[in-house]
């Protein structure tokens, strides 16, 4: 008997896919491996050590940038998720009404303009405001991050809402729940995984941002990514690898949780 004919197979596709997965992970793994290099080269292996992690930990600039990154991401993601939840409630589960298309377009606008253009625009706008008000704190970065995080937070929340069975709220109303009670007892608990997913997405997006931060930040407001970008111009030591490794770990952790939350909804 010959081998059976698999209708799904396409010649060479599996090989290319394997190359892709290999190519996607090889560089990342290299970065992680050299973070543990005992020597100060990111090319020559001199044995295992944690010295670069200690060094990064004791580097004030790194610690400050990390804290700043977390501060900005926490504030931006929280605000973005709250307003995105409200916007999602306002733009789903209704027949089309005047302005609905406009709202979709407006909320997704930050996704449609190249980051560099938004960055330039914010540089111009905020530099004016800085002159007028004299304020040059983290507020600008937080505002900018909040704005571009909104569409990302909006995405999973809206998806969740659109998949939600409309009759559940109708059923709640039928069972004497006032609109507010129906929201609190039925809509919100069912929406919660979407909100959580939105929050995490927004957090990761804010944490990762380079371009807009690079243009908007005032002196001494480096976040971890802009600090790293600055370091690339110098001689690179495995300290960058160590920072990257920790950063990667945090991202992967958040993405994993996100992945499982958004998977879970399909099974409900």
């Amino acid at each position, binding site marked *: 008997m010959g081998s059976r004919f698999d209708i799904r197979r396409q010649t060479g596709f599996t090989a290319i896919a394997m190359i892709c997965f290999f190519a996607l992970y090889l560089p990342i793994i290299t970065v992680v491996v050299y973070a543990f290099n005992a020597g100060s080269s990111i090319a020559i292996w001199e044995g295992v050590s944690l010295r670069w992690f200690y060094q990064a930990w004791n580097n004030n600039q790194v610690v400050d940038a990390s804290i700043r990154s977390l501060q900005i991401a926490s504030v931006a993601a929280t605000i973005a998720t709250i307003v995105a939840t409200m916007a999602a409630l306002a733009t789903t589960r209704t027949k089309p009404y005047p302005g609905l298309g406009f709202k979709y377009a407006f909320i997704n606008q930050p996704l449609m303009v190249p980051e560099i253009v938004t960055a330039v625009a914010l540089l111009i706008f905020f530099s004016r405001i800085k002159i007028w008000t004299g304020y040059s704190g983290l507020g600008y970065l937080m505002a900018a991050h909040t704005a571009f995080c909104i569409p990302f937070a909006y995405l999973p929340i809206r998806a969740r809402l659109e998949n939600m069975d409309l009759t559940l709220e109708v*059923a709640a*109303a*039928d*069972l004497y729940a006032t609109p507010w009670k129906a929201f609190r007892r039925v809509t919100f608990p069912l929406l919660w995984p979407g909100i959580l997913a939105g929050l995490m997405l927004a957090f990761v997006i804010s944490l990762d941002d380079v371009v807009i931060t690079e243009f908007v930040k005032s002196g001494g407001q480096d976040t971890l990514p802009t600090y790293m970008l600055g370091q690339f111009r110098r001689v690179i030591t495995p300290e960058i690898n160590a920072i990257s490794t920790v950063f990667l770990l945090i991202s992967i952790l958040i993405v994993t949780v996100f992945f499982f939350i958004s998977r879970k909804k399909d099974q409900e």
Partner: protein
Amino acid sequence: MGTGSALKSGRKNGVIVPEQPGKSAIEVRGVRKVFGTGESQVAALDTVSVSIRENEFFTLLGPSGCGKTTLLRLIAGFDFPSAGEILLHGQDIAPLPPFKRPVNTVFQNYALFPHMTVAENIGFGLEMLGKPKAEVKARVAEMLKLVKMEALSGRRTSQISGGQQQRVALARALAPQPKVLLLDEPLSALDFKLRKEMQIELKRLQHETGITFIFVTHDQEEALTMSDRIAVMSSGRILQVGTPWDIYDKPAERFVADFIGETNFLTAAITGMANGKARATLKSGATIDATVAEGFQPKDNATVVVRPEHAKLTSGKGDLSGTVENIVYFGTDTHIHVRLDSSEAFTVRQQNTRSAGCGFERGDKVGISIGNDAAQVLRD
């Protein structure tokens, strides 16, 4: 005849019971519901009026898209009528939002809250009404017992079968003791056997609770077996309201006769009226007495309907004559399709016995006699 006779007498569980004049639980008066605007406007309900009595098992029967769900949603308050009014025990409920109407719904897809347990679902309505915890608990236990779901009270609703979900949905809607229970095709998702079981179960629950049920279905058999009264709907209108007997035996319009059971349609000339009965002369020349649909306007060419089991096939002469075209065996009975001499088609249903054959063969010349009281003249 029609609704007229239903007011005087009704039959419940096969027994004729005197009909109380009936206070109405729900009174629908001239209700219209229009969706969309301009060109794309559709009238889902086209001036519907109906009165549903207390403690009644009332069924809305009609094909998909005829407006059954729309009418239920208006009664429940999920949507507003475009015109007309709906009274609950004589009171206009237009200003009441759904959460203030003493009316509960069993949804077509059950709409059980997936993040709550069976017991939490059942208790939800009482909780929203602000009932004390102890009372809610006792009532939930009572409901669980009523629908025989005690063992599964702690389960998530996603972890129980379709039939069990159905019971929970019923218990949840009954728990707050509504004045009226609305059921939107609650059995359509169940398989045949379970559906039969639940039909009996529903009748029992209605009997035990004494709550007015408004039941929606597109299944004529379900409607006939379960209802005290049926309203047959088509294209947003109610065509006829009556007991199952009225609807089946004395259909008012062609649509009703056609939608419920199988029927023979004959063209006839009405030659006279006496004692509320019409004398109808068929194309074969035979003249029979026929009951008349309410609202019938005398006219030359009326339509007479005869149910296949109310006619008898003879080898001699009958009211009609024709040729056997086809014979279809159904186990319990046999359908004999006859081409009448007037070229109309006519089907006779004949009960089977164990002796072989139905006594006729294809091509036989046969007569058909129509039983006394077997024919009804339609109004359209």
